[in-house]
C-alpha cells in the first residue's frame, strides 16, 4: 500500500471548507430570490407537465456537471428584476462551489490512492456532492425551480459542516477489509441512492407545507408567504415519488452489492449486522411508501409521512449506527 500524501490531504481539506462557504453564499442568494421574487412566477413560466419531467431527472443523471448557466431568455434590453439576477448569480456560485467540492474529493482520492469514501467524513462529502449535482443537473433542464435551491443546499451544508467538524478523520490508507472493488460499487450506489432520497425528502417536506397551506390558506400564518410560492402540492408529490422510483431500485442494487461483498469479506451474504439491519429497515419503509402511494386511504399525506420516516431511518443508519452502535461496518473513522 502506498502511504498518504500529507500536503494533498491538506489541500483537499481546504477545498472542502471553501466549498461549504461558497455553498452558503449561494444559499443566501437562492433564499433572497425565493423571498423577493415575483409571486406565482414559476407557475406561469413552465407548464406543470414540463416541470415534472425535469423533476424526474432529479437523481437520474448525476454524471455530468454542466457549468453552463441556464438558458434564460435572450439578453433583451429590459433589465431582469433584481431577485432574478440574484438567483442567476447564486447558480453560478453553486457551480463554483461544486467544482471546489469535486476537486476536494479528487485530491483526497489522490492522497489516499483509493476511492475516497471509506469513512463518515468522506461518505458525507460524496453524498453532499451528489445532492448538489442532482440539483444543478435538474436546473439545467428546468431553470424555473431555481428559487428552491436553498431548500436543497441547506441540508447539504448542514451535512458537510457536520462532516468537516464532528466526523472529520485524517486521510488514511484502506484497511484490508475495504480493499475491494466492491467498495467503489457498493458505496457509490448507496451515496447516489441516499443523495437522491434526500432530494425526495425535501420535496416531500415542501409538499406537506403546501398541502397544509392549500387546506387553510388563511391559517397558515407566517409560512403562508413561503408556501404560496411553492409549486403545486400534486407536482411536489409526484416529483418526490419519481425520485424514489429512481432511487429505490438503486438502493436495492446497493444492498445486493453489499451482500456480495459481505460474502467475500465476512463469509456470509447477510448477518444482521446493525448496518445491514438498518439497510433492511430503510428498504422495507420505502417499499411501504411505494405501496402506500397505490393504496386508497394512504395516498398523499400518509404516504408523505412514510417517505419522511424512511429518510429518518437513513439518517439514523448513517449517524447513530456509525457512531453509537458498534458492528462490522465500523468505518466511521471516529475514535
Amino acid at each position: 500500500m502506498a502511504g498518504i500524501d500529507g500536503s494533498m490531504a491538506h489541500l483537499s481539506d481546504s477545498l472542502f471548507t471553501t466549498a461549504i462557504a461558497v455553498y452558503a453564499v449561494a444559499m443566501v442568494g437562492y433564499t433572497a430570490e425565493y423571498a423577493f421574487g415575483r409571486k406565482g412566477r414559476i407557475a406561469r413560466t413552465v407548464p406543470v407537465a414540463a416541470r415534472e419531467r425535469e423533476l424526474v431527472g432529479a437523481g437520474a443523471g448525476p454524471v455530468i456537471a454542466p457549468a453552463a448557466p441556464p438558458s434564460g431568455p435572450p439578453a433583451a434590453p429590459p433589465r431582469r428584476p433584481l431577485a432574478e439576477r440574484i438567483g442567476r448569480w447564486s447558480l453560478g456560485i453553486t457551480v463554483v462551489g461544486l467544482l471546489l467540492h469535486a476537486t476536494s474529493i479528487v485530491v483526497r482520492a489522490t492522497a489516499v490512492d483509493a476511492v475516497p469514501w471509506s469513512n463518515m467524513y468522506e461518505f458525507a462529502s460524496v453524498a453532499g456532492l451528489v445532492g448538489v449535482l442532482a440539483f444543478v443537473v435538474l436546473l439545467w433542464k428546468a431553470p424555473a425551480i431555481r428559487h428552491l435551491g436553498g431548500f436543497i443546499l441547506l441540508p447539504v451544508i448542514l451535512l458537510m459542516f457536520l462532516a468537516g467538524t464532528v466526523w472529520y478523520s485524517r486521510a488514511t490508507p484502506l484497511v484490508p477489509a475495504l480493499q475491494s472493488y466492491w467498495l467503489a460499487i457498493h458505496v457509490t450506489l448507496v451515496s447516489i441512492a441516499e443523495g437522491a432520497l434526500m432530494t425526495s425528502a425535501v420535496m416531500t417536506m415542501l409538499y406537506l407545507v403546501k398541502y397544509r397551506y392549500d387546506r387553510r390558506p388563511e391559517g397558515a400564518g407566517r409560512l403562508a408567504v413561503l408556501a404560496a410560492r411553492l409549486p403545486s402540492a400534486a407536482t411536489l408529490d409526484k416529483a418526490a415519488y419519481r425520485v424514489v422510483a429512481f432511487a429505490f431500485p438503486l438502493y436495492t442494487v446497493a444492498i445486493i452489492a453489499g451482500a456480495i461483498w459481505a460474502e467475500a469479506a465476512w463469509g456470509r451474504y447477510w448477518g444482521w449486522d446493525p448496518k445491514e439491519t438498518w439497510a433492511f429497515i430503510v428498504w422495507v419503509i420505502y417499499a411501504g411508501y411505494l405501496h402506500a402511494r397505490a393504496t386508497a386511504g394512504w395516498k398523499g399525506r400518509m404516504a408523505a409521512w412514510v417517505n419522511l420516516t424512511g429518510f429518518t431511518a437513513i439518517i439514523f443508519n448513517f449517524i447513530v449506527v456509525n457512531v453509537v452502535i458498534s458492528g462490522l461496518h465500523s468505518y466511521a473513522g471516529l475514535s
Partner: protein
Amino acid sequence: MTVPMRRVLLRPFRVVWRRLTSMRTALILLFLLAVAAVPGSILPQRPLNADKTNAYIAQHGTWGRLLDHLGLYDVFGSVWFAAIYLLLAVSLVGCLIPRIRLHARASVRKPLPAPRNLDRLPESGTFETAATPEQYATAARAALGRRWRVVQRAEPGGAITLSAEKGYSRETGNLLFHVALLAGLVLIAIGQLYKYEGNRIVVQGPDQGFCNTVSQYDTWTPGRLAAEGKVTPAPFCIDALTSFVANYTAGGEPTEFTAKVRYRPTLGAPARDATIRVNEPLRLEGDRVYLISHGFAPRVTVTMPDGTVQHDVQAFVPSDASTLLSEGAFKEQGRPGANQDVGIAGLFAPTPQDTGNGVITSVSPQVNDPVLAIIVYVGNLNFNGLPQSVYSLDTSKMTEVGRANMTVGQTKSFGDGVKVTFGGWVPWVSLQVSHDPTQGWLLVAVVAMVAGLVASLGIRRRRLWLRVRDDLGSGGPTVVEVGGLARSDTGNFSTEFAGLLRRLQDAAGTVRHDAVVGGVPAGKE
C-alpha cells in the same frame, strides 16, 4: 332464501383471507417488519455476540431476563419475527395468484374498443388529413411502431377505430419482482437448513492442518439438517499454513493480511498452493475458506523437573485487538501421577513496553523485539477428562515456581529444576469454512427482483384510441380524433400525449405526400 351450509361455515375464513390479502394489511405487516427489526440492531444479539448478550442480561437483572423470554436477543430467529414475515408471505401469495391470472388474461386480450366520445378522455386531440381513412389507419399503425399493441375495428357509421395499448411489461415486472422475492425467501430458508460453518486455528508449520470433517473444527455451527448429518461436507484438506504476512502503517493501522496455504481439493488429489486474503477467500466446490483473524504462536523448549525436554508451540489468543497483546498457556505433562506437570501461563507482546514494575504491555501489532512474559507452575494440570481451555491453566493443584519476561533466544531457570527457553514465534490464522448450497441461486433470484423492479417502476401503462372518419361524404378532409388514458403512474402524460399527437399528425403528412404521388381521388383535394 336459504344459504348453503358450506358457505355459512366458510364465510369467516373468507373474511379473514380477504383481510389478510388486502393491500392495507400488507402495508401494516411491512411496517411491523421494519419496527420489529429495530431491537435487533439496538440490543445485543446472541447469534452475533453471545458473551456480550450474557453480560447485558446479567447487568439488567429482571428486565434483562424478561427481554430474553421475549426473544429480543435473537430477534431474527424469534417466533414473532417469523410470524410477521410468514404472514406477509401468505398475504403476498394471496395477492399474487389472482393478479397473475388477471395479467395472463389481459396479456392475450385485445385492446378495448374505442369509447364513443374520445374528447372526454383525460387527453384528446383532433386533426385533419387528406388521406382516406384506410390509408391513414395504416400510416398511424406504422407511426405507433411495435411498442403499441394495436387493433383496428370498423364502426357501423363507416369510421375506422384503432385501439392501442402499451406497457404490459409493467405488471409483468411487478409480478416477477414479487415472485422472485418469494423464491428468494424460500432459497434463504433452504440455505439455512443445509449450511454449515466451521472455524479452525492453523499454526504455521507442518502437522498443523485439518480436513473438512466436523471433529477437526474448533467451533462448528451447522444448519438444522447439517446438524442431523444430512449434509456431507466436501472432503478437502488444508494441510498447512505456509506463510502469513501482516503489514501495517506507521500508526499501526493494518494495510495487508495475506495467508498462503497448501491444500488438497479432495483427499486423494495432489497438494496445491493458494493465497487467501481478507476479500479473497479460497473457493472450493461447495465450500469457501476465509481468513478471519490471526495471531502469534510462541515456541518454547521446557526442561521438566525430571530432566526430560519438551518442545511446544501454542497459539496465543489476542486480548487486545489493536495491539495484539496475546494470552495463552503451555501445558507439559510429566509422568502420570508424579505431580510434576509443568504449566506456563504466558503473555506475548509483539512490540513490548514496560509499564513499570516489570508488567509488560504491547503498543503495536507489529512484531518488534517481542517479549514473552511467563508464570511457571509445577504440579497437577488437572486433566480430568473434562474439556479445558487451551488458552488458560487450571492452577488449583499447582504451585508457582517463578516468573520472567523473556526475549527471543533467552533461557531462564525456575524452581524444581524447570528451565524454559523462548525459542521464537510463528504466526497462526483462524480459518472459517462456509457452506451454503443456495447462495448462487439466491443471486439469480435477486437479479430477477431488480429486473422486475426496474420494469415495474420504469414502464408506464398507456391506452390510446383513434377514430378516423371521412366527413360523412361531405367532401371534406378525413378527420382523426385521438384520445389517451394513462393507466398507471400518470407522471408527465400531458407532454407524452402531445408528443404522440405530433407523431400521429406527422404520419398524416407522409400519407398526404404519398397520396399525391399515387394520385388522389377527385373531390378529395
